[in-house]
């Protein structure tokens, strides 16, 4: 506390001195007030967050990426929400909670979802939330024939609406969604964000602003939009008419600072109160300087997909041998300084179908060599691993790939690494593994077990879907299909765990690490919780003694 006051004082002197030098020549215009810029005094409760990149559009249905959903979900809400006030350590999977739907009923056959829309909720523009508004939003994402249909929103959310056949609002408090078959992940998918989301926007704003609606974001959430200066700030203010628990903060400012060392410097100097993605080597010194480290266990897996069409990685024993040869513990502890956990299961721990296992693929070089010999490859072979050089959730992909390269060299596998910049790589990855490529890396994951279907279903083989290794297993497909159609959660989760076992035994994927999504906060930031998601709830956050 005293230090920060001293800081304000010293900076104030410098600023005033500069102003004295320049203001007379600057036609005397501009700022009249003489006070130092910093702090704002008077107990202002504005949290400033240094974020890792410029945000995408503030249209929650269209926007991609976790960075943007962390902002959008403060302004917008979906029918179903998830409880992010409980830390990962207490809730491995965040519980689903009522959002803009006060409650819901699912028909016996699992095909009809009836949502009871929360009454008395208003959008930030004063219009009332009702069932018609919800229907209007769903049609924007799903109904090609509706005037408000948006191809981007549809593209982002298509996995959610796959089986939807009809949406109706029979009365102002009820929305009925009908599907062609049961779809057990539906509720959890409604609460997801990151690649689009189903958050509800004000129909009035959608009609009034059309194409430009992202510059006028109007939702129902705990914060309202204040202003956005691209590259500089997105500022939000507390929604004083919020239907739920109102935030303690007066406002939040999100400041994009793409350079990791600049972000750390901004935190140290007090320009921001909190940062995401600190560089791994800065964390220890920040903590010893009195900053708080907040980590969770979000649904994140940094993993390899094996190319099933490849002459080597198409062999099960080879895939198992690679899994056994990789030193996940060493990578997590030494290369990444403990900012990640080693991953042995294909599903992230923040997932109901996670299976805690280390036995199958703990490092065992001797066994890996035996397996290779059994496959007739005791002399080893050459293959290619593709990855990016940067990108969302990728941590430090190139050094991690090199670590794997060294591990595999020990069992005689010579790995060539091919890297590309993120967006180029995303396209390369989505095209699927090409000839000679044995493994493709990416980071992904969701809290819904349905994610496994997205990356391993035979119907979603690249380039028609994210199954980039062309994995095809009829037994797995059948189990996943039953899981999707299960009408009670326990049965569904049991089936998803079975699917998980099949993929693990087949070694179709090689999970490597789970990120802990570290945030570093100033000592006076209170109430921030790292829940098991890639995003956070800011309602409980406050600033002490500012």
């Amino acid at each position, binding site marked *: 506390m005293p230090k920060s006051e001293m800081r304000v004082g010293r900076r104030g002197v410098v600023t005033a001195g500069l*102003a004295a030098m320049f203001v007379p020549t600057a036609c005397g215009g501009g700022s009249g007030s003489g006070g130092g810029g910093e702090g704002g005094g008077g107990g202002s409760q504005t949290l400033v967050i240094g974020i890792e990149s410029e945000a995408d559009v503030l249209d929650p249905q269209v926007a991609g990426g976790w960075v943007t959903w962390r902002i959008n979900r403060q302004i917008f809400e979906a029918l179903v929400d998830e409880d992010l006030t409980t830390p990962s350590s207490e809730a491995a999977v965040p519980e689903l909670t009522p959002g803009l739907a006060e409650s819901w009923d699912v028909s016996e056959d699992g095909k009809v979802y009836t949502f009871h829309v929360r009454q008395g909720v208003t959008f930030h523009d004063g219009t009332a939330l009702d069932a018609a508004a919800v229907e209007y939003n769903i049609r924007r994402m799903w109904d090609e024939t509706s005037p408000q249909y948006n*191809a981007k929103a549809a593209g*982002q959310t298509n996995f959610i609406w796959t089986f939807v056949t009809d949406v109706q609002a029979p009365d102002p408090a009820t929305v009925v969604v009908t599907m062609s078959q049961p779809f057990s992940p539906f509720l959890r998918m409604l609460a997801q964000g990151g690649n689009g989301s189903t958050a509800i926007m004000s129909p009035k704003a959608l009609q009034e602003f059309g194409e430009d609606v992202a510059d006028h974001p109007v939702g129902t959430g705990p914060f309202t939009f204040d202003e956005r200066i*691209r590259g*500089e700030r997105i500022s939000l203010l507390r929604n004083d008419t919020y239907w739920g628990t109102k935030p303690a903060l007066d406002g939040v400012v999100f400041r994009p600072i793409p350079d990791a060392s600049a972000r750390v410097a901004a935190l140290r100097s007090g320009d921001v109160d909190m940062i995401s993605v600190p560089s791994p080597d800065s964390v220890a010194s920040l903590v010893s300087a009195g900053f708080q480290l907040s980590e969770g266990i979000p649904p994140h897996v940094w993993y390899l997909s094996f190319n099933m069409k490849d002459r080597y990685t198409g062999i099960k024993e080879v895939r198992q041998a690679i899994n056994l040869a990789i030193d996940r513990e060493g990578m997590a502890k030494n290369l990444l300084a403990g900012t990640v956990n080693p991953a042995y299961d294909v599903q992230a721990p923040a997932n109901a179908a996670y299976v805690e296992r280390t036995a199958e693929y703990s490092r065992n070089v001797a066994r890996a060599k035996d397996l290779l010999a059994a496959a007739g490859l005791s002399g080893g072979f050459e293959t290619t691993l593709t990855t990016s050089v940067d990108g969302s959730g990728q941590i430090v992909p190139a050094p991690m790939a090199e670590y794997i390269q060294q591990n595999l060299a020990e069992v005689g596998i010579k790995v060539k690494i091919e890297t590309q910049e993120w967006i180029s790589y995303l*396209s390369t990855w989505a095209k699927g593994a090409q000839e000679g490529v044995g493994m493709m890396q990416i980071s992904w994951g969701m809290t819904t077990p349905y994610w496994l279907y*997205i990356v391993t279903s035979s119907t979603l083989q690249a380039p028609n879907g994210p199954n980039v290794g062309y994995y095809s297993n009829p037994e797995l497909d059948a189990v996943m299909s039953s899981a999707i159609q299960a009408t009670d959660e326990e049965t569904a989760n049991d089936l998803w765990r079975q699917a998980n076992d099949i993929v693990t035994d087949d070694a179709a994927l090689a999970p490597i690490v789970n990120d802990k999504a570290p945030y570093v906060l100033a000592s006076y930031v209170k109430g921030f919780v790292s829940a098991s998601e890639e995003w956070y709830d800011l309602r409980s956050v406050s600033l002490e003694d500012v």
Partner: protein
Amino acid sequence: MIAVLRRLGSTVLVLLGVSLIVFLLLQLVPGDPARAVLGAGATQESLAAVRAQLGLDKPLAVQFLDYLGGLLRGDFGRSLTVNQDVSQLLLPRLENTLVLTGAALLVCLVVGIPLGILAARHQYGLFDRISMFVALAGACVPVYWFGLVLVGVLGLSLDLLPTSGMYNSRNPGGFEDLLAHLVLPAFTAALVPLAVIARMSRSVFVDVLQQDYIRTLRASGLSEASILWRHGLRNALPPIVNIVGLQVGYLLGGVIFVEVVFGWPGLGQQLYTSITQRDLPVVQAGVLFVAVAFVLVNLLADAAVGVLDPRSRRAVRA
């Protein structure tokens, strides 16, 4: 007059060439804008739909001509990723970059030219040797590194100045706030051009001071200050102005790194983001803005030389 018209004509050709090259280069870079929008899980159908919405399914030539047509109407197109008018997106960024470039240029001129002149005046003296060594070192220092050192020393250890952004985030202030945020990035951006300007000013001045007329002026008993600042400077100025013009171009390119280190919301940072997102219209317009600024500055520098040096006017006419 004809020379001026010819110059303007070639400027238009240069800009057209720049647009075409940037357009083609971005086609060569792998990566699909629709994929950049929709991410890893997108299906082929949704990608195709988004490509159609963005107009990316048209033939390349049509896309380029559409772009040029828009340009003539003053329409730079719409950003593919942030869905905003490109000019609306870039003009504020350009303004921020110009503020930073202007401040850096001011530092260059106010420090660089006098430094060079004084060094020339005391040729081979201690001041000359020290200042020129520092200038040489300055010209060799990576901007990125120098910025981080300034942040570390002045921003963090001494805690004198803010380290990032343009305004205070909690309480965005007016001119004072901007000024405080400007100091570190402006000095960082100025470093290399300042060093170049100082060294070039010195060598120009060393030449000038050896001219016969200077000897004549000295012999006629004029004060050293008058010789240096009145007669010497007037003759040394044209080449210095030319160098400064080129250095402004260097500054416009170099501020990209400075903007990244200091989180300055300028054109450079926006270009960087847009290139990584394959946001073609934004990249095209951004590069065009920089090219226009570069060409204009050099045009201005040439015009200034014409005003300062009657001989060059005669040369153009001839």
